[in-house]
């Protein structure tokens, strides 16, 4: 990428100020790229719509008849849609990067901004910010659905169910945690996308990462391995942030579980950053 150096001779005066400005420019460039195609906007809308729709459906389908005990975590139930929404988040993150490879745009991008880690950081920051916003809308809509629908379905305070609302501490933690969860899924997906580069393969890999461990967990009979999987896999551990009842029986505490996902995301970003730096575009 020698050509890149020649196009911007000014970049040789690499002072701290210029570096700060270059990140700002990179962010601006990435933002322009994102907002001028329709895909990302639709996908962000899809994150919110799918999450809220699935959560509402799950909440609407759940009744607690008078004569039954219902060991239901109402908060977790209200946030069911996050498990679907995360797939759209993953697509968004993967496509942001892989589309540049499939169209050859990446060569233009890197010619304009030779500092690959700046490009990568700009993409990560932008995706994280957008998912933060879309995720907040999605999670708030889901909580609202649970708040409005569940009391009418037998999950009343009189029967010992905590209200699904942000004033309830554990629900607030679960809601904020779910937004962070979506952000971390986006970053992990971005890391995978940079490593794999092909959008189809990246989507497959990310979906396998997201959904495979819970299935394995359902089938593995060995308690030792169940415990390990519950503690160390990205989605199973990460989603413990949504638990508000039976916390003592969890294999990992909610925030620690989200921390495990954060480690996965950090590892993904690090590997992605290295791959981007070391490979030809």
């Amino acid at each position, binding site marked *: 990428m020698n050509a890149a150096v020649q196009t911007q001779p000014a970049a040789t005066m690499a002072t701290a100020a210029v570096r700060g400005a270059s990140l700002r420019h990179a962010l601006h460039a990435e933002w322009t790229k994102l907002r001028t195609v329709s895909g990302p906007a639709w996908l962000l809308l899809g994150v919110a719509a799918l999450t809220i729709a699935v959560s509402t459906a799950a909440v609407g389908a759940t009744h607690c008849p008078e004569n039954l005990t219902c060991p*239901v975590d109402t908060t977790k139930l209200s946030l069911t849609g996050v498990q679907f929404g995360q797939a759209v988040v993953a697509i968004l993150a*993967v496509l942001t990067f*892989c589309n540049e490879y499939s169209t050859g745009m990446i060569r233009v991008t890197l010619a304009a901004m030779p500092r690959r880690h700046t490009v990568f950081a700009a993409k990560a920051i932008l995706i994280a910010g957008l998912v933060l916003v879309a995720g907040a809308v999605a999670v708030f809509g889901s909580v609202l659905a649970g708040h409005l629908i569940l009391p009418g379905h037998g999950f009343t305070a009189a029967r010992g169910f905590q209200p699904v609302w942000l004033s309830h501490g554990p629900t607030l933690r679960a809601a904020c945690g779910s937004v962070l969860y979506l952000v971390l899924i986006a970053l992990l997906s971005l890391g995978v996308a940079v490593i794999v580069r092909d959008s*189809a393969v990246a989507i497959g890999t990310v979906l396998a990462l997201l*959904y495979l461990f819970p*299935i394995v967990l359902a089938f*593995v009979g060995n308690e030792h391995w169940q415990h390990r999987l519950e503690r160390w896999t990205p989605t199973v551990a990460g989603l413990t942030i949504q638990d508000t009842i039976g916390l003592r029986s969890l294999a990992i505490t909610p925030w620690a579980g989200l921390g495990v996902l954060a480690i996965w995301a950090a590892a993904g970003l690090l590997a992605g950053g290295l791959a981007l730096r070391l490979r030809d575009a």
Partner: protein
Amino acid sequence: MTSQAISVPRPEAGFGDGPRGRGFGSVLRAEWIKFRSVRGWVIGMILAALLTIFLGVFAAANSNIGCQLNGGPLKTGKACLPYVPHGPGGQIVSDSFSFARQPLTGNGTLTAQVTSLTGAHVDLNGGPAQVGSGTVPGLADWAKAGIIIKQSTHQGSAYAAMMVTGGHGVRMQYNFTGDTAGMPGAVSAAHPRWLRLTRSGDTITGYDSANGTHWTRVGTVHLAGLPSAVQVGMFATSPGYTVTQNSFGGASDNSGPAQATGVFDRVSLTGTAPGTWTGTTVGRGGPVGGGPGPGGGQGSSPFTRNGSTFTLTGSGDIAPVTPGPGGGLPTVTIEQSLTGAFLGLIAIVVVAAMFFSSEYRRGLIRTTLAATPRRGAVLAAKAAVIGAVAFVTGLVAAVVSIAVGVPKEESSGQVLLTAPLLTEVRVIVGTAAMLALAAVFAVALGAILRRSAAAITIAVLIVVMPFLLTALNVVPAGIGDWLLRLTPAAGLAIEQSIPRYSQVTTITSAVRGYYPLSPYAGFAVLCIWAAAALALALVMLRRRDA
């Protein structure tokens, strides 16, 4: 990447010959060349097989049973297995009951009146206890007492029986899997039940009656190869008492040993028999089916006689063993080694979706459609090629998974619930066919959406998520059942190797290997999805510009 794929086998058959110039065979050949000449796709398919095998074997290998008998050394694996009887149909069965019997040679008829069926079970709210201490009255749904004609006292031998049950009225059952309903309602002194079994050669006919004069035929069964000398008499037994808690996340069960006591009167036996009754506890020492043997010490007779009245108390069951803890055995089914198919599915769906959508990305679709103007033929050829490749991949993966995984599970001390050979073939071939249909579905989605990422996501979500949501009890059981009826995930039913027996109390959930649809009905649902996607893809392909 796909540039070599443009090589059309017969270039002279291009534009000049018109649409009819190229047969479907050459379209198929062209698509096959496209597939095999992209290294990534071939690697993807090989990866799908390897991942399936790896995951299946991993899930199988990570279950180990430990046991300690009578303070002896801790043992693991196969040493822990109790004696497991096999029924005449080859399936693993429970066969433990109290038996008041006498040998019968040749034809004959046994008649008895049952005046009472009561039971006791371990107090499930209390701590663990034995039958006899800390028991409370209560009758399991499938507690049973009645009359039986059985080949011998060996566990698993052929039989036919008429019985009253705890919650399902009078039944005629035979050879563990057969079950026919007779008179409904519970038995009591005021409403006794008369039962009769008539043997004629290897044909046994069961009758029931409310008064001993008007008899109704319940069923006739043929027990092939029944010897001339058989054991006939009265029996009583009870499977574990199960409290099923129907709550949001499906059902959870809590099971404890139980016993049943049946009171018989006016017993009459015609035919060549000695006339004296002997007490035998079939299956003593190897209790299978939830619970220790009947109360009473070694050597005590399992029945008491007071004039013409016989009282039998027994525990165990005469029924097939089913998956899940209800059977009292650590059981495993062959399809549990096929868990990895989910991973294989994702890899196959990725390749299949790319098989069509990447032509759009590279513009190859214009070359393809110029060479083969019949768009339906292109779609059909692509579906056929990817379907066949996925089928072969799935078949290899399933065969190896079962060949490696099942022995591992057996050596870890689990009881393999064997299925007839044809059922095993159906499970293996069905898994491969399921993957092939998922591939066809994905290729059609790729044609509809023209974007691999979207096609892959939809295909994976729509096949994997319903199962996941149901298996992890994320959605209520009722909704989960409907998801497994209506979505492409219904096709997973083809993997169910153990049928649902109505005469055994089991919780039927997808994780335990029970699907709401029968294997072929579920598979048909998946076929409909694939066909619908193909039809939509055809319409879109014809209407749109490439």
